[in-house]
Protein backbone atom coordinates (compact mmCIF):
# COMPACT_ATOMS: atom_id res chain seq x y z
CA UNK A 1 0.00 0.00 0.00
CA UNK A 2 1.40 3.37 -0.99
CA UNK A 3 1.84 6.05 1.65
CA UNK A 4 -0.31 9.21 1.37
CA UNK A 5 1.59 12.51 1.10
CA UNK A 6 3.31 13.27 4.39
CA UNK A 7 1.53 16.57 5.00
CA UNK A 8 -1.91 15.27 4.02
CA UNK A 9 -2.93 14.64 7.63
CA UNK A 10 -2.51 18.33 8.40
CA UNK A 11 -5.63 19.23 6.44
CA UNK A 12 -8.74 17.77 4.81
CA UNK A 13 -10.17 19.02 1.52
CA UNK A 14 -13.95 19.34 1.35
CA UNK A 15 -16.36 20.75 -1.21
CA UNK A 16 -19.78 22.02 -0.18
CA UNK A 17 -22.23 21.86 -3.05
CA UNK A 18 -25.95 22.14 -2.43
CA UNK A 19 -28.73 22.83 -4.95
CA UNK A 20 -31.19 25.65 -4.17
CA UNK A 21 -34.53 26.53 -5.68
CA UNK A 22 -35.39 30.23 -5.29
CA UNK A 23 -38.89 31.57 -5.96
CA UNK A 24 -38.93 34.97 -7.62
CA UNK A 25 -42.34 35.91 -6.28
CA UNK A 26 -45.11 36.66 -8.76
CA UNK A 27 -44.11 40.32 -9.12
CA UNK A 28 -40.45 39.75 -9.99
CA UNK A 29 -41.48 36.81 -12.19
CA UNK A 30 -43.10 39.40 -14.50
CA UNK A 31 -39.66 40.97 -14.92
CA UNK A 32 -38.00 37.63 -15.65
CA UNK A 33 -40.70 36.68 -18.16
CA UNK A 34 -40.25 40.06 -19.88
CA UNK A 35 -36.50 39.44 -20.25
CA UNK A 36 -37.37 36.31 -22.14
CA UNK A 37 -39.43 38.57 -24.47
CA UNK A 38 -36.49 40.99 -24.79
CA UNK A 39 -38.10 43.65 -22.60
CA UNK A 40 -36.75 45.36 -19.47
CA UNK A 41 -39.38 46.13 -16.84
CA UNK A 42 -38.99 48.50 -13.93
CA UNK A 43 -41.42 49.62 -11.26
CA UNK A 44 -42.37 53.15 -10.26
CA UNK A 45 -42.71 54.23 -6.64
CA UNK A 46 -46.24 55.50 -5.94
CA UNK A 47 -44.85 58.13 -3.58
CA UNK A 48 -41.55 59.37 -5.03
CA UNK A 49 -42.09 58.50 -8.70
CA UNK A 50 -38.61 56.92 -8.78
CA UNK A 51 -38.13 53.94 -11.08
CA UNK A 52 -36.48 50.73 -9.90
CA UNK A 53 -34.95 48.10 -12.12
CA UNK A 54 -35.25 45.20 -11.52
CA UNK A 55 -38.71 46.12 -10.21
CA UNK A 56 -39.31 46.08 -6.46
CA UNK A 57 -42.76 45.72 -4.94
CA UNK A 58 -42.10 48.43 -2.36
CA UNK A 59 -39.52 51.18 -2.19
CA UNK A 60 -36.69 50.63 0.30
CA UNK A 61 -36.59 54.42 0.64
CA UNK A 62 -40.22 55.56 1.01
CA UNK A 63 -41.58 52.08 1.89
CA UNK A 64 -44.49 52.91 -0.43
CA UNK A 65 -45.85 50.45 -3.03
CA UNK A 66 -44.17 50.39 -6.43
CA UNK A 67 -47.09 48.78 -8.21
CA UNK A 68 -46.79 50.49 -11.59
CA UNK A 69 -44.66 48.52 -14.05
CA UNK A 70 -42.83 50.54 -16.69
CA UNK A 71 -40.96 49.32 -19.74
CA UNK A 72 -37.46 50.76 -19.94
CA UNK A 73 -35.31 51.49 -22.99
CA UNK A 74 -32.34 49.20 -23.57
CA UNK A 75 -29.95 52.13 -23.50
CA UNK A 76 -28.25 54.07 -20.79
CA UNK A 77 -24.95 55.40 -19.52
CA UNK A 78 -21.94 53.96 -17.71
CA UNK A 79 -21.88 55.94 -14.46
CA UNK A 80 -18.74 54.27 -13.09
CA UNK A 81 -16.82 51.08 -13.72
CA UNK A 82 -13.88 48.85 -12.92
CA UNK A 83 -11.31 47.28 -15.22
CA UNK A 84 -10.72 43.77 -13.88
CA UNK A 85 -7.33 42.12 -14.32
CA UNK A 86 -8.08 39.17 -12.02
CA UNK A 87 -8.99 35.85 -13.66
CA UNK A 88 -12.56 34.92 -12.81
CA UNK A 89 -13.08 31.70 -10.93
CA UNK A 90 -15.35 29.28 -12.74
CA UNK A 91 -16.01 31.62 -15.70
CA UNK A 92 -14.39 31.87 -19.08
CA UNK A 93 -13.84 35.54 -19.62
CA UNK A 94 -10.84 37.23 -21.14
CA UNK A 95 -8.98 39.74 -18.96
CA UNK A 96 -8.89 42.65 -18.76
CA UNK A 97 -12.64 43.10 -18.80
CA UNK A 98 -14.96 45.89 -17.68
CA UNK A 99 -17.74 45.71 -15.11
CA UNK A 100 -19.87 48.84 -14.92
CA UNK A 101 -22.82 50.49 -13.24
CA UNK A 102 -25.25 51.13 -16.07
CA UNK A 103 -28.04 53.65 -15.50
CA UNK A 104 -30.77 52.90 -18.04
CA UNK A 105 -32.54 55.95 -19.43
CA UNK A 106 -35.50 56.63 -17.16
CA UNK A 107 -34.29 54.42 -14.30
CA UNK A 108 -33.25 55.75 -10.89
CA UNK A 109 -31.06 52.82 -9.83
CA UNK A 110 -28.29 51.23 -11.89
CA UNK A 111 -27.69 47.72 -13.14
CA UNK A 112 -24.31 46.03 -12.79
CA UNK A 113 -23.12 44.63 -16.11
CA UNK A 114 -20.21 43.75 -18.37
CA UNK A 115 -19.17 46.21 -21.10
CA UNK A 116 -17.89 44.49 -24.25
CA UNK A 117 -17.25 45.04 -27.98
CA UNK A 118 -14.70 47.74 -27.17
CA UNK A 119 -11.25 47.97 -25.61
CA UNK A 120 -11.25 48.29 -21.80
CA UNK A 121 -9.24 51.50 -22.18
CA UNK A 122 -12.03 53.05 -24.25
CA UNK A 123 -14.64 52.76 -21.52
CA UNK A 124 -15.13 55.94 -19.51
CA UNK A 125 -17.62 57.51 -17.14
CA UNK A 126 -20.62 58.87 -19.05
CA UNK A 127 -20.23 56.70 -22.16
CA UNK A 128 -23.56 55.71 -23.77
CA UNK A 129 -24.23 51.98 -24.02
CA UNK A 130 -26.93 49.57 -25.19
CA UNK A 131 -27.89 46.04 -24.20
CA UNK A 132 -26.78 43.05 -26.24
CA UNK A 133 -29.21 40.19 -25.81
CA UNK A 134 -29.01 36.45 -26.18
CA UNK A 135 -30.69 35.45 -29.48
CA UNK A 136 -34.38 34.49 -29.66
CA UNK A 137 -34.95 30.99 -28.41
CA UNK A 138 -31.93 31.07 -26.09
CA UNK A 139 -33.28 33.49 -23.49
CA UNK A 140 -34.29 31.70 -20.31
CA UNK A 141 -35.84 34.52 -18.27
CA UNK A 142 -32.92 35.41 -16.01
CA UNK A 143 -30.37 38.21 -15.75
CA UNK A 144 -27.99 36.46 -18.15
CA UNK A 145 -30.46 37.12 -20.99
CA UNK A 146 -28.69 40.47 -21.34
CA UNK A 147 -25.21 39.26 -22.25
CA UNK A 148 -23.52 42.63 -21.82
CA UNK A 149 -23.74 46.29 -22.86
CA UNK A 150 -21.76 47.88 -25.70
CA UNK A 151 -21.00 51.51 -26.64
CA UNK A 152 -23.55 53.15 -28.95
CA UNK A 153 -21.31 55.92 -30.27
CA UNK A 154 -23.73 58.63 -29.06
CA UNK A 155 -22.24 61.71 -27.32
CA UNK A 156 -21.26 61.17 -23.65
CA UNK A 157 -23.64 62.16 -20.89
CA UNK A 158 -22.48 65.24 -18.94
CA UNK A 159 -20.63 64.40 -15.68
CA UNK A 160 -23.08 66.30 -13.47
CA UNK A 161 -26.00 64.26 -14.84
CA UNK A 162 -24.79 60.99 -13.29
CA UNK A 163 -22.08 61.55 -10.67
CA UNK A 164 -24.70 61.65 -7.91
CA UNK A 165 -26.62 58.61 -9.14
CA UNK A 166 -23.99 55.92 -9.63
Amino acid at each position, binding site marked *: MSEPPKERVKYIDTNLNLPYHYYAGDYKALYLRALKDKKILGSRCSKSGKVFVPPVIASP*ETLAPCDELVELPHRGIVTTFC*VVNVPVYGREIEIPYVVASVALDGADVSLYSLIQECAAADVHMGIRVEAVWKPDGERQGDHTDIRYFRPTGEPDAPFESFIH*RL
Partner: protein
Amino acid sequence: MKRPVAVVGVGQTHHTSKRADVNVAEMVREAVDRALLDAGLEHDDIDAIVLGKAPDPLEGIMQPEQYLAGALGAHLKPIIRVHTAGSVGCTTALTAATHVASGLYGRILTIAFEKQSEGNAMWALSPNYAFTQPMVAGAGGFFAPYCRAYIARSGAPGHIGAVVAANARENAGRNEYAHLRDPMTVEEALNSMMLWEPIRFLETCPSSDGAIALVMANEDHARRGPRKPAWLKAGATFTEPMYVPGRDQVSPLAGRTCAKWVYDKAGIRDPWNEIQVAEIYVPFSWYEPMWLENLGFAPLNEGWKVVDRGDQKMGRHLPINPSGGVLNTNPIGASGMLRFGEAALQVMGRAGEHQVGGVKTALGHAYGGGAQYFSIGILAAEL
Protein backbone atom coordinates in the same frame (compact mmCIF):
# COMPACT_ATOMS: atom_id res chain seq x y z
CA MET B 1 -24.61 54.34 27.15
CA LYS B 2 -27.42 53.97 29.69
CA ARG B 3 -24.91 52.46 32.07
CA PRO B 4 -21.15 52.87 31.68
CA VAL B 5 -19.36 50.15 29.71
CA ALA B 6 -15.62 49.64 29.40
CA VAL B 7 -13.15 47.45 27.59
CA VAL B 8 -11.09 45.81 30.33
CA GLY B 9 -9.11 43.21 28.41
CA VAL B 10 -7.76 42.90 24.87
CA GLY B 11 -6.18 39.82 23.29
CA GLN B 12 -5.27 39.11 19.69
CA THR B 13 -3.37 36.52 17.72
CA HIS B 14 -0.38 37.32 15.55
CA HIS B 15 -2.02 37.69 12.15
CA THR B 16 -0.59 35.89 9.16
CA SER B 17 -1.54 34.43 5.79
CA LYS B 18 -1.82 30.88 7.03
CA ARG B 19 -2.11 29.45 10.53
CA ALA B 20 -1.54 25.83 9.53
CA ASP B 21 -0.58 24.93 13.13
CA VAL B 22 -4.05 25.48 14.58
CA ASN B 23 -7.66 24.85 13.55
CA VAL B 24 -10.32 27.57 13.81
CA ALA B 25 -11.30 26.70 17.38
CA GLU B 26 -7.70 26.67 18.58
CA MET B 27 -6.93 29.96 16.87
CA VAL B 28 -9.96 31.61 18.44
CA ARG B 29 -9.04 30.17 21.84
CA GLU B 30 -5.62 31.80 21.59
CA ALA B 31 -7.21 35.27 21.43
CA VAL B 32 -9.67 34.39 24.21
CA ASP B 33 -6.89 33.23 26.55
CA ARG B 34 -4.94 36.43 25.89
CA ALA B 35 -7.97 38.66 26.53
CA LEU B 36 -8.85 36.91 29.78
CA LEU B 37 -5.23 37.05 30.94
CA ASP B 38 -5.12 40.73 30.05
CA ALA B 39 -8.26 41.38 32.10
CA GLY B 40 -7.00 39.24 34.99
CA LEU B 41 -10.11 37.06 34.73
CA GLU B 42 -11.10 33.39 34.38
CA HIS B 43 -13.87 31.87 32.28
CA ASP B 44 -15.99 31.63 35.47
CA ASP B 45 -16.04 35.43 35.67
CA ILE B 46 -17.74 35.76 32.28
CA ASP B 47 -21.55 36.04 32.10
CA ALA B 48 -22.14 35.68 28.35
CA ILE B 49 -20.37 35.40 25.03
CA VAL B 50 -20.88 37.36 21.82
CA LEU B 51 -19.25 36.03 18.66
CA GLY B 52 -18.81 37.66 15.28
CA LYS B 53 -17.45 36.59 11.93
CA ALA B 54 -18.00 37.41 8.27
CA PRO B 55 -20.20 35.35 5.89
CA ASP B 56 -20.20 31.60 6.52
CA PRO B 57 -19.02 30.68 2.99
CA LEU B 58 -15.60 32.13 3.83
CA GLU B 59 -14.59 29.04 5.78
CA GLY B 60 -17.62 26.93 4.93
CA ILE B 61 -18.47 26.59 8.62
CA MET B 62 -22.18 27.00 9.19
CA GLN B 63 -23.24 28.02 12.69
CA PRO B 64 -19.72 28.79 13.94
CA GLU B 65 -21.21 29.64 17.34
CA GLN B 66 -22.23 25.99 17.67
CA TYR B 67 -18.84 24.61 16.68
CA LEU B 68 -16.95 27.15 18.79
CA ALA B 69 -19.09 27.12 21.95
CA GLY B 70 -16.60 24.84 23.71
CA ALA B 71 -13.50 26.78 22.71
CA LEU B 72 -15.14 30.01 23.84
CA GLY B 73 -16.04 28.74 27.30
CA ALA B 74 -19.77 28.96 26.58
CA HIS B 75 -20.67 25.91 28.68
CA LEU B 76 -23.97 26.77 30.45
CA LYS B 77 -23.81 30.40 29.36
CA PRO B 78 -25.63 32.46 26.76
CA ILE B 79 -23.92 32.78 23.38
CA ILE B 80 -25.04 34.72 20.31
CA ARG B 81 -23.50 35.27 16.93
CA VAL B 82 -23.57 38.65 15.15
CA HIS B 83 -23.37 39.08 11.40
CA THR B 84 -23.03 42.32 9.44
CA ALA B 85 -20.45 41.36 6.77
CA GLY B 86 -17.17 43.31 6.96
CA SER B 87 -18.41 45.59 9.70
CA VAL B 88 -19.23 42.62 11.93
CA GLY B 89 -16.23 42.91 14.26
CA CYS B 90 -17.17 46.40 15.37
CA THR B 91 -20.89 45.56 15.49
CA THR B 92 -20.08 42.51 17.62
CA ALA B 93 -18.16 44.63 20.13
CA LEU B 94 -21.09 47.06 20.27
CA THR B 95 -23.53 44.18 20.75
CA ALA B 96 -21.40 43.01 23.67
CA ALA B 97 -21.51 46.57 25.00
CA THR B 98 -25.31 46.73 24.86
CA HIS B 99 -25.45 43.47 26.85
CA VAL B 100 -23.49 45.23 29.60
CA ALA B 101 -25.36 48.53 29.23
CA SER B 102 -28.65 46.66 29.66
CA GLY B 103 -27.64 45.87 33.23
CA LEU B 104 -28.32 42.17 32.73
CA TYR B 105 -24.66 41.17 32.42
CA GLY B 106 -21.58 42.33 34.32
CA ARG B 107 -18.79 40.98 32.14
CA ILE B 108 -18.96 39.85 28.52
CA LEU B 109 -16.40 38.02 26.45
CA THR B 110 -16.61 39.03 22.80
CA ILE B 111 -14.65 37.47 19.94
CA ALA B 112 -14.28 37.94 16.22
CA PHE B 113 -12.20 35.93 13.79
CA GLU B 114 -11.50 34.82 10.25
CA LYS B 115 -9.29 32.06 8.91
CA GLN B 116 -9.16 33.08 5.28
CA SER B 117 -6.57 30.44 4.37
CA GLU B 118 -9.18 27.70 4.78
CA GLY B 119 -11.44 28.96 2.00
CA ASN B 120 -11.52 31.57 -0.72
CA ALA B 121 -12.99 34.80 0.53
CA MET B 122 -12.77 36.59 -2.78
CA TRP B 123 -15.02 34.16 -4.62
CA ALA B 124 -17.08 33.25 -1.58
CA LEU B 125 -18.25 36.87 -1.67
CA SER B 126 -19.09 36.77 -5.39
CA PRO B 127 -21.63 33.99 -5.81
CA ASN B 128 -24.17 33.89 -8.60
CA TYR B 129 -27.34 34.55 -6.65
CA ALA B 130 -30.57 34.08 -8.55
CA PHE B 131 -32.00 37.59 -8.39
CA THR B 132 -29.00 39.88 -8.36
CA GLN B 133 -26.55 40.64 -11.09
CA PRO B 134 -23.34 38.73 -10.42
CA MET B 135 -20.57 40.84 -8.92
CA VAL B 136 -18.13 38.66 -10.88
CA ALA B 137 -15.02 40.32 -9.53
CA GLY B 138 -14.70 39.93 -5.76
CA ALA B 139 -14.79 42.74 -3.22
CA GLY B 140 -12.13 44.73 -5.09
CA GLY B 141 -14.19 44.67 -8.27
CA PHE B 142 -17.22 45.80 -6.32
CA PHE B 143 -15.57 48.76 -4.58
CA ALA B 144 -13.27 49.92 -7.38
CA PRO B 145 -16.02 51.78 -9.30
CA TYR B 146 -16.78 53.85 -6.20
CA CYS B 147 -13.08 54.67 -5.74
CA ARG B 148 -13.07 55.78 -9.38
CA ALA B 149 -16.12 57.97 -8.77
CA TYR B 150 -14.42 59.43 -5.68
CA ILE B 151 -11.32 60.33 -7.69
CA ALA B 152 -13.47 61.85 -10.45
CA ARG B 153 -15.63 63.98 -8.20
CA SER B 154 -12.94 65.09 -5.73
CA GLY B 155 -10.18 65.70 -8.27
CA ALA B 156 -7.79 63.69 -6.09
CA PRO B 157 -4.38 63.15 -7.70
CA GLY B 158 -3.58 59.53 -8.63
CA HIS B 159 -0.76 59.06 -6.11
CA ILE B 160 -2.98 59.44 -3.03
CA GLY B 161 -3.90 55.76 -2.92
CA ALA B 162 -0.25 54.75 -2.95
CA VAL B 163 0.62 57.31 -0.25
CA VAL B 164 -2.08 55.82 1.98
CA ALA B 165 -0.76 52.30 1.38
CA ALA B 166 2.87 53.18 2.11
CA ASN B 167 1.97 55.03 5.30
CA ALA B 168 -0.20 52.16 6.49
CA ARG B 169 2.68 49.75 5.89
CA GLU B 170 5.09 51.97 7.82
CA ASN B 171 2.63 51.91 10.72
CA ALA B 172 2.24 48.13 10.51
CA GLY B 173 6.00 47.85 10.91
CA ARG B 174 5.54 49.08 14.50
CA ASN B 175 2.75 46.60 15.28
CA GLU B 176 4.08 43.19 16.23
CA TYR B 177 0.67 41.57 15.54
CA ALA B 178 0.29 42.93 11.98
CA HIS B 179 0.33 40.54 9.03
CA LEU B 180 2.31 42.61 6.47
CA ARG B 181 5.20 44.53 8.06
CA ASP B 182 7.95 44.76 5.43
CA PRO B 183 8.76 48.34 4.41
CA MET B 184 7.13 49.54 1.19
CA THR B 185 7.60 52.80 -0.71
CA VAL B 186 5.04 54.93 -2.53
CA GLU B 187 6.81 54.08 -5.80
CA GLU B 188 6.52 50.35 -5.14
CA ALA B 189 2.80 50.75 -4.54
CA LEU B 190 2.40 52.84 -7.71
CA ASN B 191 4.34 50.29 -9.74
CA SER B 192 2.44 47.26 -8.45
CA MET B 193 0.00 45.44 -10.70
CA MET B 194 -3.36 47.04 -11.43
CA LEU B 195 -5.86 44.46 -10.15
CA TRP B 196 -9.17 46.27 -10.30
CA GLU B 197 -8.47 49.62 -11.92
CA PRO B 198 -8.09 52.07 -10.19
CA ILE B 199 -7.02 49.71 -7.34
CA ARG B 200 -3.48 48.28 -7.45
CA PHE B 201 -2.17 45.14 -5.79
CA LEU B 202 -0.27 47.00 -3.05
CA GLU B 203 -3.30 49.22 -2.38
CA THR B 204 -5.31 46.13 -1.44
CA CYS B 205 -5.72 44.32 1.88
CA PRO B 206 -4.19 40.84 2.32
CA SER B 207 -6.06 37.65 3.21
CA SER B 208 -5.28 36.92 6.84
CA ASP B 209 -5.84 34.34 9.53
CA GLY B 210 -6.43 35.83 12.94
CA ALA B 211 -8.71 36.54 15.88
CA ILE B 212 -9.30 39.16 18.54
CA ALA B 213 -11.16 38.93 21.82
CA LEU B 214 -12.23 41.65 24.23
CA VAL B 215 -13.60 41.57 27.75
CA MET B 216 -16.18 44.27 28.34
CA ALA B 217 -17.45 45.14 31.80
CA ASN B 218 -19.78 47.39 33.76
CA GLU B 219 -18.45 50.30 35.81
CA ASP B 220 -18.13 48.37 39.04
CA HIS B 221 -16.10 45.55 37.51
CA ALA B 222 -14.11 47.95 35.35
CA ARG B 223 -12.96 50.00 38.30
CA ARG B 224 -11.90 46.88 40.23
CA GLY B 225 -9.88 45.40 37.34
CA PRO B 226 -6.07 45.29 37.25
CA ARG B 227 -5.82 47.69 34.31
CA LYS B 228 -6.97 51.11 33.26
CA PRO B 229 -10.25 50.61 31.39
CA ALA B 230 -11.18 52.10 28.01
CA TRP B 231 -14.64 53.65 28.44
CA LEU B 232 -17.12 53.41 25.60
CA LYS B 233 -18.53 56.94 25.30
CA ALA B 234 -20.85 56.10 22.43
CA GLY B 235 -21.38 53.44 19.84
CA ALA B 236 -23.84 52.84 17.02
CA THR B 237 -24.51 50.92 13.86
CA PHE B 238 -26.53 52.22 10.90
CA THR B 239 -27.54 50.50 7.67
CA GLU B 240 -28.79 51.54 4.27
CA PRO B 241 -30.20 49.37 1.48
CA MET B 242 -28.15 48.63 -1.60
CA TYR B 243 -30.45 50.05 -4.26
CA VAL B 244 -31.91 53.39 -3.25
CA PRO B 245 -32.43 56.15 -5.83
CA GLY B 246 -29.76 58.82 -5.45
CA ARG B 247 -27.78 56.72 -3.01
CA ASP B 248 -24.31 58.16 -2.48
CA GLN B 249 -22.14 55.05 -2.62
CA VAL B 250 -18.98 57.13 -2.32
CA SER B 251 -19.95 58.78 0.97
CA PRO B 252 -22.98 56.79 2.14
CA LEU B 253 -25.63 58.55 4.21
CA ALA B 254 -25.70 55.66 6.70
CA GLY B 255 -22.04 56.31 7.51
CA ARG B 256 -22.54 60.05 7.92
CA THR B 257 -25.63 59.43 10.07
CA CYS B 258 -23.76 56.92 12.24
CA ALA B 259 -20.86 59.34 12.77
CA LYS B 260 -23.17 62.23 13.68
CA TRP B 261 -25.09 60.01 16.09
CA VAL B 262 -22.02 58.85 18.01
CA TYR B 263 -20.45 62.32 18.06
CA ASP B 264 -23.67 63.79 19.47
CA LYS B 265 -23.88 61.08 22.15
CA ALA B 266 -20.20 61.47 23.02
CA GLY B 267 -20.48 65.28 23.14
CA ILE B 268 -18.03 65.72 20.27
CA ARG B 269 -18.63 68.86 18.19
CA ASP B 270 -15.38 68.97 16.25
CA PRO B 271 -14.10 65.43 15.60
CA TRP B 272 -10.93 66.62 13.83
CA ASN B 273 -9.81 68.46 16.97
CA GLU B 274 -11.43 66.41 19.74
CA ILE B 275 -10.30 62.92 18.66
CA GLN B 276 -6.60 62.09 18.87
CA VAL B 277 -6.45 58.81 16.94
CA ALA B 278 -8.76 56.84 14.67
CA GLU B 279 -8.70 53.22 13.55
CA ILE B 280 -10.88 53.12 10.44
CA TYR B 281 -11.78 50.31 8.04
CA VAL B 282 -9.68 50.79 4.90
CA PRO B 283 -9.48 47.56 2.84
CA PHE B 284 -8.52 49.46 -0.32
CA SER B 285 -6.34 52.53 0.10
CA TRP B 286 -8.73 55.02 -1.55
CA TYR B 287 -11.19 54.36 1.25
CA GLU B 288 -8.97 56.30 3.66
CA PRO B 289 -9.71 59.72 2.14
CA MET B 290 -13.30 58.61 1.45
CA TRP B 291 -13.92 57.72 5.10
CA LEU B 292 -12.08 60.79 6.40
CA GLU B 293 -14.89 62.72 4.72
CA ASN B 294 -17.68 60.33 5.68
CA LEU B 295 -16.58 60.48 9.33
CA GLY B 296 -16.52 64.29 9.33
CA PHE B 297 -12.73 64.60 9.69
CA ALA B 298 -12.53 66.48 6.39
CA PRO B 299 -15.00 68.43 4.22
CA LEU B 300 -16.58 66.67 1.24
CA ASN B 301 -14.03 65.99 -1.54
CA GLU B 302 -11.13 67.12 0.65
CA GLY B 303 -10.18 63.92 2.48
CA TRP B 304 -7.30 63.39 0.05
CA LYS B 305 -5.82 66.73 1.09
CA VAL B 306 -5.36 65.40 4.63
CA VAL B 307 -3.35 62.52 3.14
CA ASP B 308 -1.43 64.84 0.81
CA ARG B 309 -0.43 67.05 3.77
CA GLY B 310 0.51 63.98 5.81
CA ASP B 311 -1.73 65.02 8.71
CA GLN B 312 -2.84 61.39 9.17
CA LYS B 313 0.69 60.08 9.84
CA MET B 314 2.11 59.11 13.21
CA GLY B 315 3.18 62.20 15.15
CA ARG B 316 0.93 64.49 13.10
CA HIS B 317 -2.51 65.99 13.77
CA LEU B 318 -4.70 62.87 13.63
CA PRO B 319 -2.89 59.53 13.19
CA ILE B 320 -5.07 57.15 11.18
CA ASN B 321 -4.61 53.42 11.69
CA PRO B 322 -1.37 53.42 13.71
CA SER B 323 -1.77 49.61 13.83
CA GLY B 324 -1.33 49.46 10.05
CA GLY B 325 -5.04 48.80 9.67
CA VAL B 326 -6.97 46.51 7.35
CA LEU B 327 -4.53 47.22 4.48
CA ASN B 328 -1.94 45.15 6.32
CA THR B 329 -4.05 42.77 8.41
CA ASN B 330 -7.40 41.46 7.23
CA PRO B 331 -8.95 38.52 9.02
CA ILE B 332 -12.28 39.90 7.72
CA GLY B 333 -14.63 39.12 10.60
CA ALA B 334 -12.01 40.25 13.11
CA SER B 335 -10.99 43.40 11.23
CA GLY B 336 -13.75 45.60 12.67
CA MET B 337 -13.10 44.42 16.23
CA LEU B 338 -9.39 45.04 15.69
CA ARG B 339 -10.27 48.66 14.91
CA PHE B 340 -12.37 48.87 18.09
CA GLY B 341 -9.77 47.00 20.18
CA GLU B 342 -6.86 49.08 18.86
CA ALA B 343 -8.81 52.25 19.68
CA ALA B 344 -9.28 50.85 23.22
CA LEU B 345 -5.56 50.08 23.55
CA GLN B 346 -4.76 53.65 22.48
CA VAL B 347 -6.88 55.25 25.22
CA MET B 348 -5.49 52.74 27.73
CA GLY B 349 -1.98 53.82 26.67
CA ARG B 350 -1.04 50.20 25.93
CA ALA B 351 -0.61 50.14 22.15
CA GLY B 352 3.14 49.50 22.46
CA GLU B 353 5.38 50.78 19.69
CA HIS B 354 2.44 52.22 17.77
CA GLN B 355 1.06 54.15 20.73
CA VAL B 356 -0.01 57.71 19.87
CA GLY B 357 0.91 60.32 22.49
CA GLY B 358 -1.73 61.95 24.71
CA VAL B 359 -4.80 60.01 23.57
CA LYS B 360 -7.93 60.93 25.51
CA THR B 361 -10.49 59.99 22.86
CA ALA B 362 -10.18 57.42 20.06
CA LEU B 363 -12.50 56.28 17.29
CA GLY B 364 -12.95 52.72 16.03
CA HIS B 365 -14.86 52.22 12.78
CA ALA B 366 -15.90 49.49 10.36
CA TYR B 367 -18.06 49.16 7.27
CA GLY B 368 -19.43 46.21 5.39
CA GLY B 369 -21.74 44.84 2.69
CA GLY B 370 -21.91 47.07 -0.36
CA ALA B 371 -20.75 49.94 1.90
CA GLN B 372 -24.11 49.57 3.62
CA TYR B 373 -23.34 48.68 7.25
CA PHE B 374 -21.55 51.21 9.40
CA SER B 375 -20.38 50.70 12.93
CA ILE B 376 -18.54 53.22 15.10
CA GLY B 377 -17.35 53.25 18.70
CA ILE B 378 -15.87 56.21 20.60
CA LEU B 379 -13.51 55.16 23.36
CA ALA B 380 -12.20 57.45 26.06
CA ALA B 381 -9.57 57.39 28.80
CA GLU B 382 -11.97 58.97 31.32
CA LEU B 383 -15.61 58.15 31.92
